[in-house]
């Protein structure tokens, strides 16, 4: 299994500012994922972050808005840039362990409110 720590757990931010969310994993993993969960909604994949390469973004998400860093095999950050109230969501970090088991582990999430 994997233990994932996300920081901050919640934040209230002003419109137009940026917030960087950190994700730390207790083991080395190849693939890390960032999801968005809007209030009462399902989870939507924002991007996949592999160490040593550019993140791959899903349709509807762009690097200028959600820049991602992946400096090593245990850490990643997601920045939500130039925030608007529509960015108010829970942002979740996830990792997939190797071996093709298919299991994904999630952090506890970062609850972001933009005012």
């Amino acid at each position, binding site marked *: 299994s994997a233990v*994932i720590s996300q920081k901050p757990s919640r934040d209230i931010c002003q419109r137009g500012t940026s917030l960087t969310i950190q994700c730390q994993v207790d083991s080395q993993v190849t*693939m890390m994922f960032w999801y968005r969960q809007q209030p009462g*909604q399902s*989870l939507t994949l924002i991007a996949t972050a592999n160490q040593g390469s550019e993140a791959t973004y899903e349709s509807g998400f762009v690097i200028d808005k959600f820049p991602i860093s992946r400096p090593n095999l245990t850490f990643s950050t997601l920045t939500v840039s130039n925030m608007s109230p529509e960015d108010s969501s829970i942002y979740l970090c996830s990792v997939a362990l190797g071996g093709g088991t298919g299991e*994904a582990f*999630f952090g*506890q999430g970062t609850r972001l409110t933009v005012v």
Partner: protein
Amino acid sequence: QQQVKQSPQSLIVQKGGISIINCAYENTAFDYFPWYQQFPGKGPALLIAIRPDVSEKKEGRFTISFNKSAKQFSLHIMDSQPGDSATYFCAASMGRTGANNLFFGTGTRLTVIP
């Protein structure tokens, strides 16, 4: 377009009863179907998962039933307990790594009444 459709949106069950949540998908390339349980303020946690080469998988009180021809799968929680009260998400993905790009259902909020 919702790749995985989930119902019901909410479910109330008496303690000891059976909770049933249903999901349907269209993409026949999906080959990994996990269920996640999420408590308030927590991230989703894998509950049980199935691949399409079997029709049923049971782990304790939790069972996945899978109907490949109908492209449907369901979660059954036997002897439901108040501690099972949570939001449940079905999901699907394709490829050997499984967890790459999970498509989630819309979630079912389960409440088990003592």
